[in-house]
């Protein structure tokens, strides 16, 4: 008899779930909302600020070309290379700035932790796919652009189950 009750309880549980809300996130139409504007790091206190670890953003007026991000990346992914930039750019006596290859980057954010000048942050942009590997290499001028993202979906929990909306 235990078998029969077990089977009936399983069927009952299955049929009940037909009334529960669907949980699927319909990705291209819906995008999850993240905390803040991406992972940042405060070198004075030595603690990061929570956020999504997406594509980097480089502040040209703060970058001094010290190569610390490149050194931090050396043992991890070797994705950061220092490239020549026009010498007229401010604050940068060496006139080199990081260029990031997203074909290699693992988005660990250790380069952000390494930057002592608040110059390298991460953003919420994660849609980096491209048709060629060359297009994945982001030059300093591309990294300067703040990405426009439209992410507004969150998990909503109510009596009839959880859903994305």
């Amino acid at each position, binding site marked *: 008899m*235990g078998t029969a009750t077990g089977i009936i309880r*399983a069927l009952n549980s299955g049929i009940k779930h037909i009334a529960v809300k669907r949980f699927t996130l319909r990705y291209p139409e819906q995008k999850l909302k993240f905390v803040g504007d991406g992972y940042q790091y405060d070198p004075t206190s*030595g*603690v*990061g600020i929570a956020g999504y670890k997406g594509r980097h953003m480089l502040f040209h007026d703060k970058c001094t070309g010290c190569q610390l991000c490149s050194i931090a990346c050396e*043992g991890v992914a070797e994705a950061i290379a220092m490239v020549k930039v026009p010498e007229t750019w401010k604050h940068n006596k060496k006139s080199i700035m990081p260029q990031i290859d997203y074909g290699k980057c693992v988005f660990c954010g250790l380069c952000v932790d390494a930057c002592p000048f608040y110059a390298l942050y991460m953003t919420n942009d994660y849609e980096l796919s491209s048709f060629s590997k060359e297009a994945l290499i982001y030059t300093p001028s591309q990294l300067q652009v703040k990405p426009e993202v439209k992410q507004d979906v969150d998990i909503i929990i109510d009596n009839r189950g959880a859903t994305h909306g």
Partner: protein
Amino acid sequence: MTTQLPPGIQLEKVDERIMTLNVGPQHPGSGHMRLIIRVDGDRIVSCDPDPGYVHRGEEKMAEYRNYITNIPHLERPVIHDSCNILYPYCLGVEELLGLEVSERAKYVRVIASELNRFTYTLYWLAIYGIFLGHSTMFMWPAGDREFAIDLLEKLTGARVTHAYFVPGGVRNDLPANFEDVCLRQVNYLEKRLKTYGDIFYDNPILISRTEKTGVLSRQDAIRLGTTGTVLRASGVDYDLRVKEPYDVYDELDVHTNVLKHGDSYDRSKTPWLDMLESCNIIRQALEKIPKSGSVRVKLKPNPKGGNDEVYKRVESGRGSLGAYIVSRGKPEPYRVKLSVGSFRNLICMPYLLKGEKLGNMPAVYWSLNYWPVEADR
């Protein structure tokens, strides 16, 4: 009639009754490993596991990178459980470098590590469901993982490879309003987990399928040195969170789930009970966490350890996870050894599958809570 074979070539002696099957690495029921199984009819005569298809030499790589740069590498073996696999390493490096972790950071670590237990165990459970042909049990855990992943994403900024634990604390503090969101989602997740009971764990068909298959007795579990859920399913009360509490687990009330039969059913049920326990742990941690304080010790660049060695272990989703770090006064560790639960449970596989029916192979194999990538490192 004997033919002359060229030198160096031998013919294998073939028994007519025994057939050799290669289960894996492409077989849908194996994962990234191969089981060389010899069957007599439907009975498995012997089983020889052949791991190593995803061996990446993480231990060798760790000898060339400094203590901080190792972090993104060492979490690669189990990306679903990346906080837990970094946990013993961070504890070890902290002891080597003499770092003192703040109380808040310890609580944040406990929360992140327990959330990671969800992401790993639900993934494991999803695959266990599909191995047994239960498609709903594939979809539900895979969907419910999203709650834990969403929380970890808010906390650490990445959905799988978090790179969140560092020697000296964690990378960043809890985001604003995290406690409320975490409590809400963990409560709902617990509710969802309880619904697995009716449809999966109390399902008579599943019970008849997994009960009394691959029985590992208590003595054998100890003798074979198994760990984690496999050990606890065999009736040994051993959970490192209770027995050797690290960080703040001694301040939390952790209940160890011990089942006694040691068959596939108990082995598959223990992780589920562990997840329910994790909900309690997270709630306690959210209650007891200090409201403010630093979460990370500022390190010097390229910190150096002394001439010392440490062996630290934590309880991960797959069992005890130990890190043995030998330091020789360099910025790089001299030797890092990860003693992982999957590799320790691998030894059960030939033992349990011998004499078992071939149809039981997926049920027994995956109930060992085995993660091939972690075992290979």
